[in-house]
């Protein structure tokens, strides 16, 4: 049996203690604790659907060792949506712009987009495409996903929303 490690971390604003296998990824640890908006698409960092914010930075949680997250803060798309107005607005923008088809890449896409906007990302389609290039989508052709992030970036630039 693999060695267990106890980690304390903040997940979506809540202090939690997880007992995880020492080799377990953050993605697996979150999913084992029913944080199901963190999806598993490849488990080797190629698809990006498991993207979460770790201490404010977008990371692929399947490539992040859970044990190394002891004492750190994790936000997922779902958690952000209920607590962070910017992410909530980005989620709405995904609906308005028709950016959601099967929805499986969506949580990771929104976290990647939210991280971009929180770090001062501009309403610039090329820059947005670059920032989501680690997140694969097979349904949309990306146009409407870029539309949604662009729309919210524009709202921030026009002072209608704060990043």
């Amino acid at each position, binding site marked *: 049996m*693999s060695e267990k490690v106890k980690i304390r971390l903040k997940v979506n604003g809540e202090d939690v203690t997880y007992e995880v296998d020492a080799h377990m990824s953050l993605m697996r640890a979150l999913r084992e604790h029913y944080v*199901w*908006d963190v*999806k*598993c*698409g*490849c*488990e*080797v960092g*190629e*698809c990006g*659907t498991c993207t979460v914010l770790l201490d404010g930075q977008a990371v692929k949680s399947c490539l992040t060792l859970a044990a190394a997250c002891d004492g750190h803060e994790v936000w*997922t*798309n*779902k958690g952000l*949506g209920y607590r962070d107005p910017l992410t909530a607005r980005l*989620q*709405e923008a*995904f*609906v*308005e*712009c*028709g*950016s*959601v*088809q*099967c*929805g*499986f*890449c*969506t*949580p990771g896409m*929104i976290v990647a987009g939210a991280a971009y906007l929180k770090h001062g990302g501009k309403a610039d*389609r090329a820059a*947005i*495409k*670059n920032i*989501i*290039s*680690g*997140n*694969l*989508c*097979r*349904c*949309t*052709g*990306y*146009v*409407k*996903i*870029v539309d949604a992030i662009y729309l919210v970036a524009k709202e921030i630039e026009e002072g209608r929303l704060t990043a």
Partner: protein
Amino acid sequence: MKKNLKLIGNPVPRHDALAKAKGEQLYSDDWVMPNMLYGKVLRSKYPAAILRGIDTSKAEALPGVHAVLTAKDVPHNEDISKFGQMRDVGGGFEGLYKVLATGKIRSKSEAIALVAAETEELCEEACKLIEVDYEPTEGVYDPREALKDGAYLVSSEDASNRIMRSKIECGDIDAAWAQCDAIVEGDYFTTPHEHAYIETEGGMGWLDENGVITLRVGVQVLEHYRTVAKIMGLQHTKVRNMSVPMGGGFGGKEDITVETYLALLVTKTRRPVKMIWSREESLETHAKRHPEYLHYKTGATKDGKILAQEVSIVMDGGSYTYLTPWVQMYSTYAAAGPYNTPNVSIVSESAFTNNTFSSANRGFGGPQVNFAHERQMDKLAQKLGLSPVELRRRNLMHNGDPLPTGFIPQGHNALPELLEKVDKALNASPKPERLPDGRKVGRSIACAHTVYGRLTFMHDSSRVSIRLELDGSVTLRAGVPDLGGGQASSLCQIVAEELGLDITDVHPYIMDTHLTPLSGTTTATRQLYMSGNAALKCAGVMKGRLMETASGILGYPVSNLAMGDHKIYLVNDPAVNIPFVKAVANLSNDGGELETITQFNAPFTEVPDLSNIKGQLNPDLTYTCHGVEVAVDEETGEFEILRIIAAIDAGKMINKNSCEGQVEGGAIYHVFWPTHEDLKWEKGITRANSFSTYIMPTAADVPDVETIILESGGGLGPYGAKGVGEPSDNSIAPAVVNAIRDAIGTDLNLNLMPVTPEKILNAIRGVDMEH
């Protein structure tokens, strides 16, 4: 038909979009149950072998392992493949479905044994402990080789590797060549194409309190529950799939995936079992788009009138039949392209090989032949000294023109208009020879006609039900598997439109085999056409009842009344009205029926004579045209896609966002197929079994797709809609390669996929890598 549509065509939010955006949607993997076990499949070590024996004793002895099953444990290990059709078609169209391996192993994806254990790690451990006695054999990996006399026989059940042979002929092909001033001939190869949905296959199963095998598996074909029941030796009523939305399908979740495995493990262990395939297992195991070897010979007069098209196709069916015969029908049917051609000969053959099996992938046999005939068109134009657009303009089919089978498509053909629009958009400014950075620029336009709706000899049907709730809301039930295209939401939009309600007033309950009416498969670009028409019909029945009720209350004949804004009102004086909810209440008080189910049937035909296919095979066609601009680096052979123009006649958009989403997504789904998306098959082994080796486009790799959507109203779907899901990905692949050809000025190395930078560079240098 209603003239003033309020909801239809609008980009209204889908019922499930917010839940998906908020991360609330639970997919196949997002579910656990108390006392649950994990399941795993042991796959073959070899692509070709004879299975001499299996010893499972060590695996069974491992603590925590609860079941190790092999073919002898399967009640009925073999069945005839069914794909949700309502008719036994027979005649070589239905192949063997074998659950676990016996006799000859046909490919690496063959399932040898099933394991259920306490953890996924234990499942893997147990699989390693299963001792399989293989006798590896040579195998055959090229369908052209497989069809030769004396070839290695792939299966132990068939006397030949041939799956099917079919033919379409019209005119006199042999006599036609003498009248041609220009003839071009070419060999083409199209690679197996991976669906690459972000969600792999998987799901859960358990026995309910009445012993019903209950599955929670996202699939494109709910009707596989019947196959599971047959395999298990149970009545159809004893297997239920309460399915969930898929994280993408594209045809790859059309064949049965984990359903039977779960049923077997659940029955053996009497505990809930979850099985999720890894990305590697998914890429190596599930069906691919058929690789096709095509030979084309096209002849025309000097003024550019195509006289003859001779095509031979050899399709790699891989290890099992699955949907090969259906896909072959589509390839054969579409092989001559959307051009008037008086003399045609199309012969197609399919064969078993020891490769991963081939089956449905978005486009279903259409894109392979489209790649070849559109490459031919550009070569022919070159030879005739005409522009490729002009050659197409002179030969496109128009309304009333027959297909090579003699069938005249019933729906509108907007291709002539689409071609002009794409030409205008692509060539709005003159093409520069080079970009400022020195890269050569190329442009190209390609056309396609793609069927929607299933083969008409399958006698397709769909059912939808509606229940009026007493508060004036509406419950819609449909066994529509939703793979992300907005299939269910469009049905709500149709019902809301017809009943004068908002889309939020209609809630869909979908895809439960035993609680929703069976709406048929989410395949063949059929749901909007089939279930959309069923929903329209169902809403019509309800509307009739409510109008009668209102007529009785208001004292005006039904013909003077209309429905809208949650009211039933007098057309000439809308102030005379009753609320929708009041009409429902009255209908209920009078003992009227608040619930109804209706069925829509597609046109029915008989199974064609495969040696001479004539007449109608599909309900209708959707027409597309793609324009592409590329920049090619002559130093490296690398290319960049600068522009994509995607044009389609959608007939009528039901949901603007959903329709555009298909057109944009379809273009990007196929844009890398001819060049980057290569599974690197080597003698039955998939070398590219990850997303870092199987290269599909990221957002940074592709331009924004520029969409042109016509609404001719000339489709067979509700409000004149046509299907757009699969057509959206046709005609872009040849446009990409033809644009590269336009940039580099040679056809060398651009005919056999994958067209890699190495091949492009060699083409520029005059080095032939294809012969």
